[in-house]
């Protein structure tokens, strides 16, 4: 296996895209999928259930220090940052918000990029602020694959455009192309 994990960041307008991706991945998808999506701080339940409805792979909100497994999706819990530790573990944090966000996409991407280096695929989707741009840059700088959803297709373009301004990404893909790319991972 070339890659170790896929990490996806999104905010406003990303829910439908994530749902389509999870609906298209096979049950045997060979990597863990990390999801860092902006969400309300005080609403703890409902999101993971909504994402699970059409997903072929189990979607869960991890506990601290949980071991990552292939063929599962891990959603950053409300009001926690989700870090990726070395040795394939999740670590949660209640540190300050970054870009007004907790979970922060930048922090999830930066820590994942440190843990997996070139064996990481980072994807930034539709969203309304700059969070994720620095994180995707770190994925790219560490040799991983940096993908941005085509802004033309995004409900809200700010997040993808900020990422594109900061990094010469590997691919600008529509949702269908993102899915095709992921399905080719063996």
């Amino acid at each position, binding site marked *: 296996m070339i890659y170790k994990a896929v990490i996806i960041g999104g905010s406003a307008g990303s829910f439908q895209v994530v749902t389509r991706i999870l609906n298209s991945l096979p049950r045997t998808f060979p990597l863990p999928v990390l999801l860092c999506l902006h969400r309300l*701080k*005080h609403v*703890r339940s409902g999101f993971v259930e909504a994402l699970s409805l059409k997903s072929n792979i189990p979607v869960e*909100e*991890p*506990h*601290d*220090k949980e071991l990552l497994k292939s063929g599962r999706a891990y959603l950053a*819990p409300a*009001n*926690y940052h989700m*870090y*990726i*530790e*070395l040795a394939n573990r999740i*670590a*949660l*944090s*209640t*540190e300050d918000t970054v870009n007004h966000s*907790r979970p922060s996409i930048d*922090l999830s991407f930066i*820590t994942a990029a*440190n843990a997996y280096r070139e064996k990481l695929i980072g994807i930034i989707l539709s969203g309304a602020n700059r969070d994720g741009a620095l994180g995707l840059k770190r994925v790219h700088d560490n040799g991983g694959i940096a993908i941005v959803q085509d802004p033309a297709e995004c409900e809200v373009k700010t997040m993808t455009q900020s990422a594109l301004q900061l990094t010469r990404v590997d691919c600008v893909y529509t949702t269908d192309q993102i899915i095709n790319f992921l399905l080719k991972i063996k």
Partner: protein
Amino acid sequence: MPDLGIVDIREIIRALKSEYNCDFGNYALTSFKQRLERIMILFNLGSAEGLIGKLRSEKDFFDTFLHELAVPATEMFRDPSLWRWLREEFFPSAINKTIGKYKIWLPGCVSGAELYSLAILLSEMGISDRVHIMATCLSDKSIELIKNGCYDSRKLEVSEENYKRFNGTRELSAYYKADRNCIFRNTPLIENVEFRKLTVDFDNAPLNIKLILFRNCMIYLNPTQQDKILKVIYDSLSPSGYLITGIREKVPGISAGWDFETINETESVYRKRIFS
């Protein structure tokens, strides 16, 4: 932004051990790195050597370092549903069953967010005089700031929202005065709280505690240290004492060192069982 490598972090841990006999080797690496980098920005230190130099040459800096290293609770009344549960279900019966003071321990205080939330809750219930609260901190600076009531005003907005969801009997603004960057909470709320410093390994933990409020502190430790601290926590509790952790933290359950039964799964409340 600084980006510390593993070698840098090990050097810093070694310096802290040799200079202050304080072992951070079992802290969770990623958050420890984040905290160190944050301290470097805060004190304008460009490199790991710079930080180590400051730690070695300025003995007063170590206490500040410990204060800045510790992660404060996000805001007051985080998870309002827990605070409602404590008010409506937990405290009424817990206090009634207790003869003498009901002992509560908050092991990891940094900003006092949890402590003041608890003090407000108890005050609104009219049972402040029935409890004895012990608050322990890693640093003197944390103790001093909490005793002054000082609190980061950027955390006020979410705290106010939380307090509304908690359905408190007043407005949160009844409990503080706003200053420029800081608000000052009403210190009479905590006048009977006992403060102590606690070591990284919890060597001087108190005993016979009825309730330990320990939310989102163990996430900053690696699994080895989490187990060590959970054992100390278990030993600190009186028989049938309660432990409350953060909702996404390790579920204590049963192991060689402890035996906890789950009392409230949604809010992560556990009760100590005695080994049989």
